[in-house]
């Protein structure tokens, strides 16, 4: 019996998911566990695996079309198996019976030699065209075939080579060619990030201000208490956790920054859902620590660790990525000082954290060695002006410079 593969529900709040790429086409054979599609929902991208051995009998959802969770996206069954009426009407009923929950894995698809070879073999191409393409390192899957049933002919390959040659012969082509070779498709998570970030800049009035906080005392406090906290709470407390706590406290004092600009209205929040940007190998996700205002420093640290780990393992559900009221992004690990973070819409502010630096600094008349932390705050000028934003950043600075307040 053909297995129905459905759009998974990745969280309570998920309303829609999109197949960003089909890795297989109708008629391709698959083994259980083969990646058949990438899907995305909100900021998360996931791989869908084949639930059983067989062939892709039908694909019901085209790439880039959003569908509700539970929608059948494809069938996997025996070659030539007929889909029953029950099968084909399942989507309309919205209550698929023989649903096989799609297995999801966020990991990079394993370099499954067998399955990638298979898809290569299904490209219709003449023997000589294949040989020429291989000798020239052309990806046959990107060549348009003009032969019978779209078969790629020698002429088609030669056309691509001729185009490549004429591109190469154009003067700026040396660079051009190098860039072209590295072209990556904007799909899946990249596509989501690209459009969100672009829209963010298009649809708000962003301004970034910078300030540095002297975190020398904070760092020594961290050193003092970290082993204790590790022993007691099994949490390794980091500078980020202190910064997060400082931000939460500051947001409560500066409600305008803990807000969102939606449909020409400013929504001020009492709760703080703190977004923490986490870099992944192939993109960026922002897990959300909900109700951070109710957490102690240690609780906050523990929650941040769990969410970040979830994100890296691809186990974040979409409702754990939604609803943030303010975001922190940290590029300190990369040696960056100040930068201009891009707002995570519809939020009003985002704090960029740079790398701490040892600097000589006068304390009174004494020149001392101090650790300073560069902070960059981007905010939406439609919501608030420079002065209140500076006040907010100043409050963060104060908390960081008097770290004892963060423990209270």
């Amino acid at each position, binding site marked *: 019996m053909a297995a129905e593969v459905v759009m998974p529900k990745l969280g309570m709040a998920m309303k829609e998911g999109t197949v960003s790429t089909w890795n297989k086409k109708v008629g391709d054979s698959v083994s259980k566990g083969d990646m058949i599609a990438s899907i995305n929902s909100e900021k998360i991208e996931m791989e869908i695996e084949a639930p059983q051995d067989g062939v892709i009998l039908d694909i019901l959802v085209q790439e880039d079309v959003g569908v509700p969770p539970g929608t059948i996206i494809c069938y996997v069954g025996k070659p030539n198996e007929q889909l029953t009426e029950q099968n084909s009407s399942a989507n309309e009923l919205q209550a698929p019976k023989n649903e096989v929950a799609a297995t999801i894995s966020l990991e990079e698809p394993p370099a499954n030699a067998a399955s990638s070879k298979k898809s290569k073999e299904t490209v219709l191409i*003449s*023997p*000589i*065209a294949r*040989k*020429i393409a291989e*000798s020239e390192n052309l990806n046959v899957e990107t060549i348009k075939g*003009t032969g019978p049933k779209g078969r790629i*002919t*020698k*002429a088609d390959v030669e056309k691509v080579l001729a185009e490549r040659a004429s591109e190469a012969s154009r003067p700026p082509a040396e660079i051009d060619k190098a860039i072209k070779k590295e072209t990556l498709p904007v799909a899946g998570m990249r596509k989501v990030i690209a459009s969100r970030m672009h829209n963010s800049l298009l649809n708000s009035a962003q301004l970034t201000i910078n300030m540095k906080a002297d975190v020398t005392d904070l760092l020594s406090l961290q050193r003092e208490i970290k082993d204790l906290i590790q022993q007691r709470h099994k949490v390794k407390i980091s500078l980020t956790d202190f910064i997060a706590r400082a931000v939460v406290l500051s947001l409560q004092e500066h409600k305008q920054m803990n807000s969102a600009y939606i449909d020409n209205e400013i929504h001020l929040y009492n709760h703080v859902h703190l977004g923490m940007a986490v870099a992944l190998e192939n993109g960026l996700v922002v897990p959300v620590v909900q109700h951070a205002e109710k957490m102690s420093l240690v609780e906050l640290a523990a929650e941040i660790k769990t969410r970040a780990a979830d994100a890296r393992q691809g186990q974040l559900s979409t409702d754990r990525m939604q609803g943030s009221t303010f975001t922190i992004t940290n590029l300190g690990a990369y040696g960056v000082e100040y930068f201009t973070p891009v707002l995570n819409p519809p939020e009003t502010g985002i704090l960029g954290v740079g790398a701490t630096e040892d600097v000589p600094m006068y304390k009174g008349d004494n020149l001392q060695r101090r650790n300073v932390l560069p902070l960059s705050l981007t905010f939406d000028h439609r919501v608030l002006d420079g002065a209140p934003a500076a006040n907010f950043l100043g409050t963060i600075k104060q908390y960081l410079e008097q770290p004892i307040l963060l423990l209270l």
Partner: protein
Amino acid sequence: MKPLVVIGGGPAGYVAAITAARQGKQVTLIEQKDLGGTCLNEGCMPTKSLLASAEAYEKIKQAEQFGINLPLEQVKINWDGVQHHKTTIVKNLVKGISYLMKKNSIKVIKGEASFLTNHCLAVRNENHVEEIEAEQFIIAAGSEPASLPFAPFDGKWIIHSKQAMSLPAIPSSLLIVGGGVIGCEFASIYSQMGTKVTIVEAADQLLPGEDADIAFTLQEELEKKGVAIYTSSSLTEMQPKDKTALFKHKEELHELQAEYALISIGRKPRVLGLGLEQVGVHFSKQGIDVNEHMQTNIPNIYACGDVVGGIQLAHVAFHEGTVAALHACGKDKSVNYRAVPRCIYTHPEIASVGMTEKQARSEYGDIRVGEFSFTANGKAMIANESVGKVKVIVEPQFNEIIGLSIVGSYATELIGQGTIMMHGELTTDIMEDFIAAHPTLSEAIHEALLQSAGQAVHS
């Protein structure tokens, strides 16, 4: 349904008409003579029928070799019988086309068509002129024999191919001017029937489009049958009165008398009289200009077959007719000349596809050639047909099969294998493992392929 009119009922025209009708078009076909065009009435079919008679005669004369005793002196050709066989076949085939026209609801109008505007034709039939309007047109008016400027056809002594196939009797002697496909086919037919044939050819070999070694095999066989062949020779004068021709061979002037002089120096596209100038369709002496969809510069007018020049063969006309009709019906179809077989129905037959060795050398420089002779092929020996060979041309970098030439019995059937290999763009390494039935003539193809890779078993 938008009406479409096809001009000409030859291979290009009738196939175009049927294809368009099957696409749901209302189709009218105009033909001034008989359906089937040159191919059926005065080309492929009648010549092949005459060749079949000549070959049957030839075979019967070999009866003894096969262990059959016959009173050989009584074996004679009955020319009327030969003509009857030919006309019966032609009639049946023409009837077949008429039937196809009816079956596909194609209206056939007899008459000669010429354009008045790009949506209207005048169709002349004796004294009657009818105007026919249509949305689209497909011109498939074919070609006609080219004549020598100083020797126009008179139908009595200076004749063209159509006349040569319906002579009142087997001629005692025949001069053939032009050693191309048609000339060689007639030389083969009549020499086997006992006519003293002389060929005068301007190029330095017979069949200038084929490799010299292939053409030379035919030349030797024709010479064995008494054909006198003068290559690098040019005709200088024709004297119908005393049926004498003068030609120059190696600076020497020759005089030759023959009962008939067949001029087979090529065919010219029938571009005049169609009113093409009237509607602004671009054309030249070489044919009507078309794009890859067989569309002329006037978008609702297509042209296909011999009338566009290019390769003047019936199967190319079929393909072009199909493409023209499908494109006229809104299908994105282009012509595909990837692998066009060329067949010469002489004895021995010659057939080739793709490049000749000469063309391949000039294009690729170094190439690999595999050859296998029918003298080492069992089936050919059994049939007493061991003259000839298979030659395969392979491009050395990727082992692509880029040409196949066959001279020998059934070459025109065997070439289908080469056509498939070339159409499929196959390489010799794919073909090495292929199993050819034994005993067959096909084995020679396999051996030639193996030889190109240095692995031949039987040579």
